[in-house]
């Protein structure tokens, strides 16, 4: 294809740098400086996509973020597929590959389009709701059909190959938008010594100045922009972010900026460079200089390719050197629309006429048209466009003064391009993100930012200020105001000199009348992306939807990826008109982040793959990996789950680990247990208040198990606490509860009992903890220490310091297996050394490493609970049959005491933890199974509690389980039944949860 619409000269493109690209399989050439949209227009591409519902051919309408139609799929490879890219914002690079998002088999010959043509009138708003409601059973069938036809683009099926980054930024002043207002604001703020960030979504700073032919102080706007940008670049503490969209404005001036670092360079980001960077900015002041977006006019068949906004026409000519047609007609409600006619004419192409909806127009624009010999038709409107894949002609008819009626016959004009201007809508989106509602301003016929609690200033187009000189003034003023509020000294700055014109008042016109009523006129599109028409909005209102939020949801107005940037105001005005309300009465829908669609990559940053979530390791991790451990996630910790030998099944490995421990000696890495160092003269008192049992008399050198409850009396953690010195304790917590318990201690100390002299410090990571367990554990340990390990001198629940394998250690004689056990704590940098030395001496005892699964089985054989597995936040110590761990005689009403005494907590039929022995010893009840007392009871059967722990016990030769059973503690020997999903029922007998060594002799040897 040749660039038939490319002008010979002009624009900010480099004609010496051609770039080839592919669109829908066709090779084309554009230039450095093009966007994909300008390159497509240069190549004469009219149809860039199909509409969502009716599959009508659609062309490029705008030149910016508000583009509803040219939403393309990007990517030369599967891994680089990116959906939802606005061609108007995508810079062209050599080798770019893009395709239309909708349309099958192709955008030019679309199957759904033919259906849409015939069925269009039969697809009113709510069509899907109405049609696919009944019968409900067929919804899945409908959904498949709808999904296939719906959607904008697709995500990649492969992993993204690029890197995405995130950065936290802080500044005094964040200026959003680098148009004339933003540049002035940034300059004023920077000159005053503020830390400034200036962000703009475009590749170049300058905003609207890049699109026109303004002169500033007699020179091209270009020169002024360069001067300002150069100064800003040289100023310390000024960060300039082009290609960066400020996408979200959150509480207390926290904003997110989506910077596209390398989207303009190639399909993949350069090696080691991020593709996008998300800046998370905390700004003391925000200056919104986001400008305004032009409203297109709504008229019959206004979606036929060739219909554009008037600024888009000017932008393509002035910035990109592209005139997207031969013969233009302009329709406008205001003076600004005339610019397109001037630019088009000056580019050497034909302007048939300017259709002005106002009765009269005088002054500068009239002169400009006369100079160029362009006809103005006042009091008229384009009521309808003719054509299919490109505008062929328009019907122009006279309308009445308020634009509500066609008052004469229409004349047909042959043109191929329609530029329309319905005035400006300030880009208020960001100011609304934190809940502020915009306010209607009749003078400018648009919404402007409303009151906000954010430290926010606004300047330029966003305020409805459009005259360049005033825009400059507002920009400088906002910059100075920000400085003042920050206590900085503003410097004097001159407002740049520009030519200004007296303007005729604009006309408020949101729907161009047609001689037929709305419902019968050719489709008058309001929201292109969702095929929302004026008739559709009228129908929604007639069907009773009054709130604009309801109209939005029923018609899908503003639902698209463009969030209705182009169509919302027109749509709301039409809804207001139908309901005989004013626009301020109707109000707006809520604008939410993000301003433009953002990639998941930019949101995820580098928190993906290996770095998705921290993996916490103990000091023994290298050994575990080298010895074939499989790992289980416990919180963020990676804990060995079990250590299979080559070819060994999980159950076989567990059986081996369990037997070895009971018969000789096993070893567990218990380093992940939470450990809290507690010191102070009131440490003991504090323990007594947070544990349910007594601590007043625990002597130095002794350990004690404790249960920790909430104020409601329910268990939330447990562990062993050892008395290191009279005022010094070491508390252990569950692995998952470590942080929670420390915070629990702190909150009570800091808010309730600050008078208690006690300090808590986490030493979880400081100590490596390894537990050797089993009848040979003493023999093994004796080989590595000179401590007296005899039962008389080092009894159960004692602890001592001694060297183990040459390393100073604390040895705790505590047991979670019911076997003779020693828990060895050494400074973590020596954990692996001691662990290795244990193995160096352990071979003759068949020292066997075991993981969390065997730990669970061994403790279940002994009926020891795991907080969080056998308890669920609704279980108190008595429910567990652990009344022995509750000391109600303590003088202080410890945490949990009052809660446990509540009426509901003393019911005899509470769910209580019991052992469960299956009638068939080989059956292991699935954990979580719900029990019933009568398996023949009609469904729904009354459920009496669930199985909390259930395993095969190789040591006992039968399955073991624990579970909560209503009134279970007084039902020993009775049967409980566990119906399964497959219809079978597992029968079990309620028994003591202590299956092995009920007298506890093994740990006391």
């Amino acid at each position, binding site marked *: 294809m040749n660039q038939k619409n490319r002008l010979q000269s002009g624009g900010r493109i480099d004609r010496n740098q051609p770039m080839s690209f592919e669109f829908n399989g066709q090779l084309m050439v554009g230039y450095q400086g093009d966007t994909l949209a300008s390159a497509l227009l240069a190549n004469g591409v009219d149809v860039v996509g199909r509409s969502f519902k009716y599959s009508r051919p659609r062309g490029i309408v705008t030149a910016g973020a508000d583009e509803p139609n040219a939403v393309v799929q990007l990517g030369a490879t599967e891994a680089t597929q990116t959906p939802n890219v606005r061609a108007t914002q995508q810079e062209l690079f050599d080798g770019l590959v893009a395709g239309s998002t909708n349309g099958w088999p192709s955008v030019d010959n679309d199957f759904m389009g033919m259906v849409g043509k015939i069925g269009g009138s039969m697809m009113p708003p709510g069509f899907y709701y109405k049609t696919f409601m009944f019968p409900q059973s067929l919804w899945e069938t409908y959904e498949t059909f709808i999904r296939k036809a719906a959607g904008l683009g697709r995500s990649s099926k492969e992993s993204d190959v690029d890197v995405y980054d995130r*950065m936290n930024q802080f500044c005094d002043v964040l200026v959003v938008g680098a148009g004339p207002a933003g540049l002035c604001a940034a300059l004023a703020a920077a000159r005053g010594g503020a830390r400034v960030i200036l962000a703009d979504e475009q590749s170049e700073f300058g905003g609207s100045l890049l699109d026109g032919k303004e002169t500033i102080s007699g020179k091209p706007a270009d020169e002024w922009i360069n001067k300002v940008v150069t100064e800003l670049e040289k100023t310390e503490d000024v960060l300039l972010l082009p290609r960066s969209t400020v996408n979200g404005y959150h509480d207390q001036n926290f904003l997110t900026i989506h910077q596209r670092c390398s989207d303009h360079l190639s399909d993949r980001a350069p090696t080691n460079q991020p593709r996008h960077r998300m800046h998370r900015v905390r700004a003391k002041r925000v200056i919104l200089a986001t400008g305004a977006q032009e409203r297109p006019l709504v008229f019959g068949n206004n979606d036929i390719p060739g219909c554009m906004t008037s600024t888009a026409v000017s932008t393509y000519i002035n910035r990109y050197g592209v005139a997207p047609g031969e013969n233009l007609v302009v329709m406008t409600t205001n003076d600004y629309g005339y610019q397109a006619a001037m630019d088009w004419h000056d580019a050497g192409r034909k302007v048939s006429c300017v259709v002005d909806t106002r009765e009269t127009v005088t002054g500068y624009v009239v002169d400009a048209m006369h100079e160029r010999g362009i006809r103005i038709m006042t009091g008229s409107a384009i009521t309808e466009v003719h054509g299919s894949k490109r505008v062929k002609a328009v019907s122009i008819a006279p309308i009445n003064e308020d634009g509500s009626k066609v008052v004469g016959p229409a004349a047909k004009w042959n043109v191929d391009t329609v530029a329309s201007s319905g005035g400006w809508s300030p880009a208020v989106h960001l100011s609304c993100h934190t809940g502020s509602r915009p306010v209607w301003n009749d003078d400018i016929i648009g919404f402007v930012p409303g009151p906000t609690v954010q430290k926010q200033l606004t300047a330029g187009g966003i305020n409805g200020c459009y005259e360049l000189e005033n825009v400059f003034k507002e920009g400088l003023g906002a910059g100075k105001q920000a400085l003042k509020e920050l206590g900085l000294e503003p410097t004097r700055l001159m407002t740049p000199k520009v030519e200004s014109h007296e303007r005729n008042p604009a006309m408020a016109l949101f729907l161009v009348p047609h001689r037929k009523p709305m419902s019968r006129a050719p489709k008058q599109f309001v929201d292109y992306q969702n095929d929302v028409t004026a008739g559709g909005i009228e129908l929604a209102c007639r069907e009773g939807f009054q709130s604009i939020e309801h109209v939005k949801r029923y018609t899908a107005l503003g639902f698209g990826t463009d969030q209705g940037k182009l169509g919302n105001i027109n749509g709301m005005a039409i809804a207001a008109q139908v309901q005989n309300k004013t626009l301020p009465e109707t109000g707006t829908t809520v604008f939410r982040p993000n301003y433009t669609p953002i990639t998941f990559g930019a949101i995820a940053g*580098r928190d993906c793959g290996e770095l998705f979530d*921290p993996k916490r390791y103990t000091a023994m991790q290298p050994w575990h990996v080298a010895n074939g451990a499989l790992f289980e996630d416990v919180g963020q910790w990676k804990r060995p789950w079990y250590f299979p030998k080559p070819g060994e099944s999980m159950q076989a490995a567990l059986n081996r680990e369990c037997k070895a421990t009971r018969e000789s000696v096993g070893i567990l890495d218990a380093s992940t247990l939470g450990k809290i160092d507690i010191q102070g003269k009131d440490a003991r008192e504090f323990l007594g208040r947070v544990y349910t049992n007594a601590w007043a008399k625990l002597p130095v*050198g002794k350990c004690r198990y404790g249960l920790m409850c909430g104020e409601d009396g329910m268990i939330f953690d447990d562990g062993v606490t050892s008395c290191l010195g009279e005022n010094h304790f070491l508390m252990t917590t569950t692995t998952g509860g470590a942080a929670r318990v420390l915070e629990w201690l702190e909150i009570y100390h800091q808010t309730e009992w600050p008078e208690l002299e006690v*300090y808590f410090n986490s030493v979880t990571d400081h100590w490596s903890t390894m537990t050797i367990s089993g009848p040979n554990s003493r023999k093994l340990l004796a080989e590595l220490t000179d401590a007296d390990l005899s039962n008389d001198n080092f009894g159960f629940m004692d602890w001592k310091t001694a060297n183990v394998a040459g390393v100073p250690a604390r040895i705790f004689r505590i047991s979670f297996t019911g076997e003779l056990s020693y828990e060895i704590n050494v400074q973590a*940098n020596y954990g692996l050394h001691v662990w290795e030395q244990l193995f160096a001496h352990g071979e003759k005892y068949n020292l066997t490493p075991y993981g969390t699964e065997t730990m669970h089985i061994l403790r279940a054989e002994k009926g020891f609970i795991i907080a969080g597995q056998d308890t669920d936040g609704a279980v108190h110590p008595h429910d567990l049959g652990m009344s022995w761990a509750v000391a109600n005689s303590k003088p202080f009403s410890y945490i949990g005491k009052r809660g446990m005494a509540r009426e509901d907590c003393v019911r005899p039929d509470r769910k209580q933890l019991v052992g469960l022995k299956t009638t068939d010893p080989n059956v292991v009840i699935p954990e979580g199974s719900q029990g019933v007392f009568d398996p023949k009871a009609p469904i729904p059967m009354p459920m009496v509690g669930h199985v909390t722990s259930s395993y095969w016990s190789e040591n006992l030769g039968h399955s073991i389980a624990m579970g909560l059973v209503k009134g279970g503690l007084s039902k020993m020997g009775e049967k409980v039944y566990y119906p399964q999903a497959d219809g079978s029922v597992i029968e079990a007998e309620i028994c003591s949860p202590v299956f092995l060594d009920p007298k506890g002799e093994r740990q006391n040897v």
Partner: protein
Amino acid sequence: MSEANNNVRLVMDQLPGDDIQGRSPLHHADLATVAAQGSQEGGVTIQHHPLVGLLTLRCNAGDADQMAAASKLLGVELHCQPLTSSAGEGVAVRWMSPDEWLISVDGAKAFDLETAFHNDMPGHYALVNVGGGLTVLEVSGEHAVDVMMKTAPVDFHLNTFPVGKVVSTVFAKSSATIRRLADDRFELVIRRSFADYLWLWLQDASREYGLVVRT
């Protein structure tokens, strides 16, 4: 060394003799080899300081006797001013909280300090050896501050984060105590169990500037 109840010591020398080499949380990453074989030039330099002696001191900042005694024992001023640090010969003290400081000394000196405090520190206090649970990294270079900005939600501008300032904060998805050693040099004290994760993170975040590893 003070003896309490038989074998139970209030202050415990936790380090073995020199014949047993401690292994830092990043021992497995073999940073010496990475340093020797990796790039020698780049915008970010990461250095690991393994086996530093680290202790948490808790005491009452409002108790002048305690503050004076602690300053004397440490050999540097113990500051009450939030987010500050002080450093002297072989010792650095970081403000962590109104009643908490993080002290670093040579690994072998931790026990001496514990003993000295045990003997001479008056009043209610706690000095807890945490050297095994933490490790120290240093991030420096032209782009060090950029890596910090990627990783922590804190303002690193020199006006608000001058040399000597200490901040404990979220660091990637873990946490760190950050001290600014120079305009372009930061010390990180991180938790042992997160060391591998943070090492991977820092490598990844530094890549666009070029990473140099030093031992």
